[in-house]
């Protein structure tokens, strides 16, 4: 399943490594340490890890970037916009002052808006991933360990949630929930929108982790260490979260790291459709949906914003893959 093996295979066949010299004495290494070393040897994972870190830092330090760059995300440069609402100059108004050009019509700086968009996107994606993973762990462990009717109910809910069309359902939920709290003419607060999106992802997203964890727990619960814990009078809480959970970190970490890019995509998609984040707040989905309006006259706007979200998702995906290979070497073929 892994794609990074291309990078590791030549290493394995390295002719200089074939005659195994009586190497240094065997040193005991923990599984975590072994995984870390495998991860560090994987070039794709290392590079994508740095790119990922770069994006995260850029997003976190957005106000600092704004200070250094000298332009804010809401500043408009109307004097650099032509009458047909396209930016003046070449490539969508790229210049030393505006690195990625300007937005058509309003004339806001694309670069700084992308930096702040990164912040919005990462905030929603990581919170959603954390929440879904936590929910998935708890429900999966409980269903897997307790079995019986609790398991039956949770498993049915998982199957049911999979039968719901996410995007269509999201389309339906967003306005109804908003209408519950706001009147038709009210301005909707940005934090409220963000919270609803995170909850929406949580509602649908926990099923994947829960199913995975449940499967693992079903096979783990028959093992001796669990029996031993039970025999020595350990409580349910202790068995679930002290005995079982530590055995599950590897698959959980993998699903978490691959969930984040999924939510980045999902957040951008919802905002693209106009039901997530809305305009003045900087956001990838909003920018791309606006850029499609001007695709004929100013294609660079789409290309800049599209490339940034593509690289962001790619870096997270590649790193997630590398992490899986490192934590679960059997999965790489």
């Amino acid at each position, binding site marked *: 399943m892994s794609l990074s093996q291309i990078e590791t295979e030549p290493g394995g066949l390295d002719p200089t490594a074939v005659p195994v010299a009586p190497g240094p004495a065997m040193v005991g290494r923990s599984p975590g340490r072994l995984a870390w070393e495998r991860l560090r040897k994987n070039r794709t994972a290392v590079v994508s890890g740095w790119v990922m870190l770069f994006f995260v830092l850029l997003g976190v330090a957005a106000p600092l970037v704004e200070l250094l760059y000298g332009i804010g995300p809401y500043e408009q440069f109307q004097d650099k916009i032509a009458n047909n609402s396209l930016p003046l100059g070449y490539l969508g108004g790229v210049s030393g002052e505006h690195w990625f050009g300007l937005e058509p019509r309003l004339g806001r700086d694309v670069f700084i808006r992308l930096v702040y968009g990164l912040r919005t996107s990462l905030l929603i994606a990581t919170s959603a991933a954390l929440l879904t993973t936590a929910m998935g762990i708890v429900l999966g462990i409980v269903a897997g360990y307790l079995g019986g009717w609790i398991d039956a109910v949770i498993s049915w809910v998982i199957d049911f949630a999979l039968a719901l069309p996410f995007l269509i359902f999201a389309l339906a939920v967003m306005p109804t929930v908003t209408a519950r709290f706001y009147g038709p003419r009210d301005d909707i607060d940005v934090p409220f929108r963000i919270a609803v999106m995170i909850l929406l992802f949580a509602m649908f997203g926990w099923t994947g982790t829960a199913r995975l964890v449940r499967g693992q727990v079903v096979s783990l619960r028959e093992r001796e260490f669990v029996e031993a814990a039970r025999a020595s009078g350990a409580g349910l809480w202790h068995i679930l979260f002290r005995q079982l959970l530590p055995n599950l970190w590897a698959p959980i970490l993998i699903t978490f790291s691959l969930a984040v890019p999924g939510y980045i995509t999902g957040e951008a998609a919802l905002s693209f459709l106009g039901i997530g984040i809305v305009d003045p707040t900087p956001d990838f989905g909003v920018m791309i949906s606006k850029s499609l309006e001007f695709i004929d006259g100013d294609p660079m706007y789409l290309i800049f914003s599209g490339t940034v*979200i593509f690289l962001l998702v790619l870096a997270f995906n590649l790193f997630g893959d590398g992490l899986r290979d490192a934590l679960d070497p059997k999965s790489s073929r």
Partner: protein
Amino acid sequence: MLRFLIKRMLLGTLTLFAVSLVAFGMFFMLPRDAVATMCEKNCNAERLERMRDELGLNDPLLDQYTGYVKGVFVGRDLGSAQGGWCDVPCLGYSYINNEEVSDIFARVIPVTLSIVIPAAILWLGLGIGLGMLSALKRGTVFDRLAIGFSLTGASMQLYFVGGILLIIFVYTLKILPPPRYVSLWESPLDWAAGLVLAWVALAFLFSAVYARLSRAQMLETLAEDYVRTARAKGLTKSKAYGRHALRAAITPIVTIAGLDVGGALGGTVITETTFGIQGLGRTAVEAVRLGDLSTIMATVLISAVFIVVANIVVDLLYAVIDPRVRLG
């Protein structure tokens, strides 16, 4: 076989029933007032109340739900405010478009089908073919290229791919008209020219995922003993791989393909929005924007129907592909 089919259909109906309950409960328990959107001007409290009465919004929730379900199966009278009698697949009345929701669907479902079916053929062929080939040619340049494609493709966004295709083929090379829908029966050529970019964009993204999946599946199968046995007893490569291995490798892919196609039929929301084609997905987006509750509700139901049906089809296909699966 028949017994299995009936069992699956019952289970599917149960799921649909649950979906409809959830959707109905969600819309009608929330205090959003459909009537207020219907009558924009000159509305006083008395008139609003009369309309609510006429629409049955003052009835108990259970009655409203049974009324809705009855409408779907036998049709019902919606009252003069909603165009009178509503024929059998009665999905309610759209106040915004002033027509029955089933009429809107009759118009937009062919559009979504025209996008999804050719795209699915393209992505399955391309994705599975690419994955299988790169598994057989493991480690070669071709394999690396295929891996690179599936990696980048899986991280691409539909609207970005769609936008780039638009920039290249419609606005720069000008060899394609702006995307639109023309009925296949009217002019097959215009039909294809108007939708080809949507097919390619969808196929690009999905085939990346399928290439990756089928490569992994094929590699796993090729390592199985029975494939080696088949080769050892003298079967040619094409027979051993094409017949024995392919069949086993393709089974899990069928499951995912079924779910994806079913999901896509329920509305290629992003594709349709990117290309500005009015199918089921875009109708749903517009219904949301305009607060057209009956249309949203019906879209949720119809897309759940597509997914449930796709699931049943997948189970049947399983029995055809995998002889170990016994239906019953």
